[in-house]
């Protein structure tokens, strides 16, 4: 049932999903981290953006990105410290990469010609 629904959903989706700003950041962080699950993803996000990131927002974004097909997850590695609960590891899918690239390109397009202003200290 799930696969059937997913198939229909894929058919009806735009080929390149649109990414919000936070989703864009989350997707990039997933790429940055080796063995990406929520805890290190959030750490990287906070370090690199310099802003506090609430856990709830991160989980919501991860769920939404997965629903959009930009992320794929697997459950693995239930260590004792986690009370026997598995980690959810995330990978960026080809579709996610395409979305990243397209967003990146849009931004690059928009920044072209503004280097003088944007790169001034």
């Amino acid at each position, binding site marked *: *049932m799930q696969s059937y*629904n997913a198939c*229909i959903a894929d058919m009806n989706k735009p080929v390149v999903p649109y990414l919000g700003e936070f989703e864009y950041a989350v997707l990039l962080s997933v790429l940055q981290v080796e063995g990406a*699950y*929520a*805890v290190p993803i959030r750490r990287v996000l906070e370090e690199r953006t310099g802003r506090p990131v*609430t*856990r*709830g*927002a991160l*989980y*919501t974004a991860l*769920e939404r990105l997965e629903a959009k097909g930009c992320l794929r*997850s697997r*459950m693995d590695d*239930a*260590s004792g*410290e*986690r*009370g026997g*609960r*598995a*980690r*959810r590891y995330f990978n960026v899918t080809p579709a996610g990469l395409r979305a990243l690239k397209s967003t990146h390109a849009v931004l690059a397009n928009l920044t072209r010609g503004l280097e003088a202003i944007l790169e001034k200290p």
Partner: protein
Amino acid sequence: MTSPSTPPALAERILSWLIRDRDWRDSIVGDLREEFAESSRRDGLRRARRWYWREALTIGMRALITRGAARRARTRWPLDAAEIESSRSWRAGFARDLRHAVRAVARRPATSLVVVASLALTLAANSSIFALVDALVLRPFRFPGVERLVVIVSSNPQDAFVDRESVAPADFRAWRSESHTLTNLSAAEWWDANLSGTDKPEQVAGFRVTADFFKAFQIQPMLGRDFVRGEETPGQHRRAILGYRLWIRQFGGNPGVVGQAVHIDGEPYEVVGIAPKGFAIPDGAEIWAPLAYSPDEWNNRRRGFLVVSGRLQNGVSLDRARAEIESIVARQRREYPDTNQARMVAVLDFQRGMADPGAGPFMSVVQAAGVLLLLIACANIANLLLARGGERAQEYAVRLALGAGRGRLAGQTILEGSILAVIAVIISVPLAWAALDVSRASIPASVIRFVPGLDFMRISPELFLVMLAMAAGATLAFTLFPALQAARIGISLALGQNSRTLTSSRERHWLRSTLAASQMALTLALLFGSVLLTATAYRAINGMFGFDKHNLLVARVVLPERPYAEADRRRQFVTTVTDRMRAIPAVSAVAMVSNLPYSGGNATRGFWPEGVTVKDREVRQVDYRRVSLDYFDTMRIPLLAGRDFSNGDRAGTEAVAIVSRSLAERYWPGASPLGRRFRITADGEWTTIVGVVGDVLHDWFQQRRAPTVYRPLAQDAPLSVAFVARTVGDPSNVAGDLRRAAAAADPDQPVIELKSMEDVIQDRTAGIAFIARALRVVGLIAFVLAITGLYSLMAFMTSRRTQEIGVRMALGATWWQVMRLATAQAVRITIAGLVVGAVMSAVLGRVLESVLLGGVSNNLSQLGMLTGLMATVALTAAYLAARRAASIDPTLALRAE
């Protein structure tokens, strides 16, 4: 055991519960554990736990919100729906049905609101009424073994009001010695005990009882001892058992008072015991003394005034005891035809026999109103839910087509009903609480003594369950019907139907109209009942009394028998008090009377007019009053003929009396009664009538003015007296003066019931005023329910005909024709409902008349007015609904789907 590295278990539980997806739950809870371990290493356990709570709650709330949002946003695929509808998994189905039901309830907020409000109000009214009936009528006494106790009364068991102070001493003696089915048969006589010698003399509610009285209840005094048989003889009887509250109030709970003497009625009584806490039988008694009669007094079979109670022997049924006592009474009838020939007997269970005698009939009126209200609410709910069910025929058909079982559809409808019922019950509980509080507060302090069971007036868990069952029953019955219909419907038929081809089935249409009409009928009857009772209560409180109730201070004194055995001492007491009162500037007139109107007590005598031979049994009883000089002036009772009493009427002179107008008219119609003579016993002295005064209403439920004889204090001095003082300004200002005047006449003599005449009337009419108030509330709720019901039905019916109306308007129908079309149904329903309602009202008026002892007068003009009011409001509702239909643009109406 919580190890240092595990997070707060409760927070984790909440979080787990809030995140429904299993994988997400595992991973998030795991992540938090991981971070918690780190945090507790870094910041310490306390801060880590605080951190965990904060995070768990914010993540959980967020999950809750996004879950809702995701569901709303989710696209529904046709095959997905089919898969769900045909799913045979009970649990999945139930969860889905529940969601469906909640959504269905929430999507029609107006209908749901009306259903819930109708149900909640009705339940609150009914459950508070039930709590009242249970506490005051069904089970006012709750102690072990109460079901084995009986009360025997010498009055007609068919009488609405049980008169338990009705047994003659000789009758009681015979029962006690002859009965084998009853044990500890005991008698009690009303006793106003004047307690003095304490800091604050007071009159205590007391009873003189035979020695077995306490044994019948199987209770022992908590201190001291019970009475013994030997104390039933005169001379040995000066013993008393104090009630717990009296003991605390007057003696500070000092156990040393047992064995000591206290002053009661001017004589020393030895306190032999203290009754256990909470025991106050009968009539809220607080002191008991042995009943000691001389042999002569025991042989009295003429007058009945004893309260008789006893306990069934082991293994004996109430019916057997009843049969035995009835056979004894039948024999007494044969043996003493002079006195016992017309005597009745009733062996009652204790709850009925000892309860407030007025509570039964009064509460039955309120309870009947509650049941009517329940019926009205049911009709209302049924109508709304039927309408809703019809509206949803298509939805059901679609779901049937997709493979949903018919049982599932029915189940879902039932679920919807249950949700409404549960919400209604939750709302109704605080409402019922409030209603009970108001009821409790509306019972005046002076009446509380006679209302046993007041402490049990509350919403018990059992009652809550009953409410729940009632609510569930009401909604289930009416949700089930459309569901069954839905299950019966043919799919293709329903799918083919839309509002153009389906007005609604004839059967359902008829059902709804009948429901609306019966609702109108019931409401009219209920409103009429409440108007009748309101009018009765108004008349009882503000009506024509025959005297002026304003600016009148009254006080009652019961003089003890022994110190006041001589009539002269009684007269002297009265004269001292009235003389002192008269000296007060704020008092314009003062007098004394033996039985104050509206005080609840009465005294009657036989009436033998001169020149007429009447047999003992045919003698008319007349009200009998002893009054001091100036009584008629003080009360402002008009003197119609003859003269008032004067100082010339004294003990030695000719016996004189003044009679009321009704008495004069009954015995000497068209002739002057002045100078005529009568006797109050067959062989008594002749009394001459010297004056006629206006009639006085002695009690609220007496419609006819009772014939009354007034005798002067100088020739007949009573023990129980009431003073009345006409005051200038607020009567309570001179209350202290009256108390001091009584104390000057006899310092041991407490004054009771010192209050204004208006308060006396208010206390006496508290019962009827309470019912009237309760019925007004119930009637108002019913009225609102009926009108909303009718309006919603009209609105629904016209909305279903929107297209038809559009077609007609497009074809040139005028506004007026459309209005007539749309309101015709309402007019028919209204007329049918009101005709039936009027008939029901007339019957109800008769019933009320008989239940409330004729205190209610059936008034047809009120019925006419109410019918008019109902018709106006109902037709206005129909008009508003129709106007909306008629104002529709025809093109829009045609397109409406």
